[in-house]
């Protein structure tokens, strides 16, 4: 049985890095006495795959991983048992059955993600936020410099910003997040700030929160985004 688990990561635990968060869940699965399936060999490990790494310091309401179980269990029971053994700041908010096998795992499904960026007090850009965003988004192209193994490249990220709007004094984003077009919310925000202020943004001006991760059940031209929990087939 393969399940997709949705969790939130808030508060001090946001400073626990991606690999350590994975380790934390491996230990939690054991504490919850869930019948995890293991790989073979001398150092067997749980068959677990995370949808998308979350940066250190970033909070999230919608994180995902897939877990293979050796026995069938009701999803509600899995959710309850796992949530009870989580440390402060980590909560299991949903569990759903998904088809077995590697195909269609959480990571390969990721197409987009929502974020909320909150400015630290005194660090907000001057002006009406929604106007600034309109000006930014009115650009046909938004180039950033990406450094890869083969050198520096100019990449147009405008197509990857599916949505950007003001939510009170925060910015809401829906950004492309597949492996080929993964777009970082801090990159977009820094580019936005540089555009509206004409200066390099100050470090630590804002805090990022991921809200949800989506699969795309539509087409390249007409996206139909469904959260990874909704897009898991009910088995």
């Amino acid at each position, binding site marked *: 049985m393969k399940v997709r688990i949705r969790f939130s990561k*808030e508060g001090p635990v946001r*400073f626990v890095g991606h690999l350590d968060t994975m380790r*934390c869940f491996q230990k*939690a699965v054991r*504490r919850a006495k869930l019948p995890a399936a293991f790989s073979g060999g001398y*150092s067997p490990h749980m068959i677990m795959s995370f949808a998308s790494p979350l940066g250190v310091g970033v909070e999230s309401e919608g994180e995902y991983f897939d877990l293979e179980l050796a026995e069938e269990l009701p999803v509600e029971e899995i959710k309850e048992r796992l949530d009870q053994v989580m*440390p402060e700041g980590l909560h299991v908010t949903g569990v759903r059955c998904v088809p077995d096998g590697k195909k269609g795992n959480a990571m390969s499904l990721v197409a987009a993600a929502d974020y909320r960026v909150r400015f630290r007090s005194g660090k907000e850009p001057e002006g009406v936020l929604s106007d600034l965003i309109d000006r930014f988004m009115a650009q046909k192209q938004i180039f950033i410099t990406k450094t890869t193994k083969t050198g520096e490249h100019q990449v147009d990220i405008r197509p990857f910003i599916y949505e950007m709007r003001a939510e009170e004094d925060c910015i809401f984003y829906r950004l492309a997040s597949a492996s080929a077009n993964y777009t970082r919310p801090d990159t977009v925000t820094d580019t936005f700030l540089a555009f509206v202020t004409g200066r390099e943004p100050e470090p630590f001006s804002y*805090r990022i929160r991921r809200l949800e991760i989506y699969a795309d059940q539509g087409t390249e031209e007409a996206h139909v985004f469904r959260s990874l929990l909704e897009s898991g087939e009910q088995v």
Partner: protein
Amino acid sequence: MRELALPDEILLSVDKAARYIGGEVNAVIKDKDSVNIRFAMCFPDVYEIGMSNLGIMILYDMFNQRDDVWCERVFSPWPDLDALMRKEHIPLFALESQERLKDFDFLGISLGYEMCYTNVLQVLDLSGIPLISSERGEDDPLVIGGGACTYNPEPLAMFFDLFYIGEGETSYDALFDLYIENQKNGGSRQDFLRKAASVPGIYVPSLYEAAYKEDGTIASFSPLYEDVPSVVEKQVVTDVRHEYHVIHRPVVPFIKATQDRVTLEIMRGCIRGCRFCQAGMIYRPTRQRDVEELKATAKEMLDATGHDEISLSSLSSSDYEALPELVNFLIDEFQDQAVNISLPSLRIDAFALDVMSKVQDVRKSSLTFAPEAGSQRLRDVINKGLTEEVILKGAGEAFRGGWNRVKLYFMLGLPTETEEDMKGIAHLAEKIAEEYYEVPKSERHGKVQVNVSTSFFVPKPFTPFQWAKMCREEDYTQKARIVKSEIRSQLNQKSIHYSWHEPDVTVLEGVLARGDRRLGPVILAAYKKGALFDAWTEMFRYDLWKEAFAETGVDPDFYTLRERTEDEIFPWDFIDAGVTKRFLLREWKQAAEEKVTPNCRAKCSACGARKYGGGVCFESTDPVF
């Protein structure tokens, strides 16, 4: 949700921010207003090292079982954070509450090794607690030290208000009760310290005075007041079945600690009596924990932590009599749940090889032998029972069982050591390599690899070698060169890899291990010059220490290059550690005569630990002797 002491911009700028946030599974949160005592438990090294220390985790769990005490943890901030805290004037805080240490009642510091002494000062300094105990006021925490280094606490005497000598289970309750009572009665810090001096195992350094002879040795060491005991008794859990504090829910770090596993302590003490080994002397008598209790505890701790590995802990696991039963239980119970079983400090014999082949991948693992000395003569001097025959037999069996990697640990600079003893290291490594090629080619797995590692011997208090002199730095280097060149002239030299530790740390460790109160200013000067994390090779700055010695006018050679006379008063003589000075002296002379002393089970050697009324001293109703 808890508020963090450090702002985001700092946490995002330092390496491994999760070291500083607390909130781990099984960390204890209490209402600070509902407790009488707030205790900060510190291991003065980085989080990953400190969280691997069994001692502080036992005390953490034990203290928190009291409703009137909240014990939290604190570790040394890594230099990156250290610099930012000083720059931003952020005081050091405890992980659980994230509140500053200065407001705590106690700051307990575990002293596991001498090279952490400057880190002790860092913790005090960052906390805003005066470094020198006499400068602390009524509102400052009481700074109490514990752990192996308290068997000679004198180099740190000026920085600590109290030391707890021995195992924590016995006297902390009395100490806490006394503290609460003193507060209720409106007593002062001094009132408390004076009374605490009478609690068994508690040493209050400010209540004692040392006088020195012209040659620099101690003339006298005595309490300042009549009601202060002249001898401090080491504390021992006599009955490990009932008084041992079992941890039920160990804290589970987010980041990978050095010991990222359940640690199951199976035994305290060691029956072997190796003459260089401080642990083997100060933790006497050897006490074995009940195997049924261990089975239950193992299960409970794995359940409560979710760790995927359990490690048995003791000074010599092979001497735990129920080891086969315990290990087989762990394999049967947990191996199909993909739990690794790790068995350090096993003597290599048929049983060990059988067990190891069950719990690890033979081809990826290596065997470890600790002959400690290269010749039988020198092994007799140090009372290391391991013979060449046993090592070669064990290695041979292992090679036939599929292993092809061997680690060998030795010490250089042991008392009476000659060039032949040093060369013996190379010869033993060669014989092991040759043993491998005795195995028929069809049964061998590639080439053999023999890894030889040497450290330099440091004489420690309460060992038979506490009278011994050490060598100069350059002499140590020369010894390592002799070993190296002898290894290079062996037939199988390509199969033998040699590594050794730098000697400068050894010399300093030697000074601090057997030092006295006059070293306090040296440690302070070294810290002020920037010495920190001295236990980390890449951060150790011997040049700073050399300057500190020069400026304070303290001669390090006095502590290292002198062979002590039989009647010299040692700085640690006021501690009753169980083993008597008479016994240690007898052993020192036996060593000179190259005579071995049988282990505690084979024959009692009247070391003095029998007075505690438990352990191996009383195990057999029908003694062998």
